[in-house]
């Protein structure tokens, strides 16, 4: 029992190191305002979701998602599930095969590196909880 525990610990250290390196290098190169959603994805066996703000703001004004669709303006405060999306809430309000492509293109959203923590990436300069 102790043997397997120490083995697990021995494995965990390099894994943690890798995860940290991935996390750090990611922050320096990701596009400004890219958001990683990973509260459910990896638990459910999918890659984390990467949401690119830049791509969407070329096509929609902020207000469409942040006022109409109910996305709160703080990374980590929106628990989006595939059930919601298929029912037409959150991403599913547009990603329904009519305004934008339908949710069956799993790997276009679920395209993040495994192990990424949820949050906003890409050289942001403000931090902390905020009020949203």
């Amino acid at each position, binding site marked *: 029992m102790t043997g397997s525990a120490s083995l697990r610990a021995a494995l965990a250290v390099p894994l943690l190191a890798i995860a940290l390196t991935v996390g750090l290098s990611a922050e320096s190169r*990701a596009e400004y305002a890219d958001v*990683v959603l990973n509260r459910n994805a990896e638990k459910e066996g999918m890659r984390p979701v990467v949401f690119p703000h830049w791509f969407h703001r070329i096509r929609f004004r902020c207000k469409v998602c942040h006022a*109409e669709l109910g996305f709160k303006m703080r990374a980590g405060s929106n628990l989006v599930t595939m059930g919601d999306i298929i029912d037409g809430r959150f991403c599913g309000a547009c990603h329904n095969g009519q305004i934008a492509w339908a949710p069956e293109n799993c790997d276009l959203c*679920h395209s993040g590196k495994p192990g990424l923590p949820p949050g906003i*990436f890409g*050289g*942001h300069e*403000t931090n902390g909880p905020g009020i949203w």
Partner: protein
Amino acid sequence: MIRTLRNPAVALGALCCTLFATGTALAQQDKGKAVYDKVCVACHSAGIAGAPRLGDAKAWAPRIKTGIDTLYGSALKGKAPAMPAKGGATDLPDADIKAAVDYMVAAAKDGGSGAAATAPAAAAPAAAAAAATKPRPAALSFNRLLKPASKRNPPPPEDGIHDPQNDGTHALQPPLQVFESLPRSNAGNRVDWVKALDNNLIAPRWDRTDPAAAPVVMDLNIVREVKGSMPDVVYPHKQHTAWLDCSNCHPQIFIPQKGANQISMAAILLGQKCGVCHGKVAFPVSECRICHSKKKNVMPVKNAQAN
């Protein structure tokens, strides 16, 4: 060789013919590549919906066996389940589509061997260059923490958060493809989004479904006097209401009443007030003078002399 030298006219003619033939073949190849890069790439680079990938010899081999005319036919008329006629670009002439097919078939035949053949050729000048300028350790590089222009806005497979192993990653739009046509700025995405919108270079929808809906823009500047030596802040409702709804900021972030909002740079850096967006998705706080833009009333001359 000697014989051709004896008859320079023949030699010249032969040379011209060869050059012409190579020229047209190259032009054809370039055309094929251009069409591929514009149209076919959407599916054939990532292998979306079962499309054989460019250069994937294994996937192409059984298709090439059916004959080039069958492939031309599939490309021109479309093929179940997902290949549209002419890859969706029905306005292109047949010859262009055929050139693209030729290009992809050639790439598949090259497969690994093509890449292997070009690699040593490319490696030779690289090695020469490396010998001339010995690479310095990264710790000695100039502006170590400042990203060079070539490292900015990388395409998704190289940006460090997308998984390059994932097929979908390669189908995503690279930011620079769009940013090149937009006004640049010095921070954030390095795009001046406000200018891009003002100049109609982008047309983001105001309504989810109605492309014609337009925002009600409110042109009202709020001047906030600041305590320190920085210029006063001018807050323009105009640029904000072009993107946002009143309810995005009022009343939760900013109480819509004069003097009711205490704002400090500390709060902004903690992600409150302006920092809800600025520094995360709107231009960051390093761009001081975009907000701190109103020159303070200069001190009376008498006081200035006293100092």
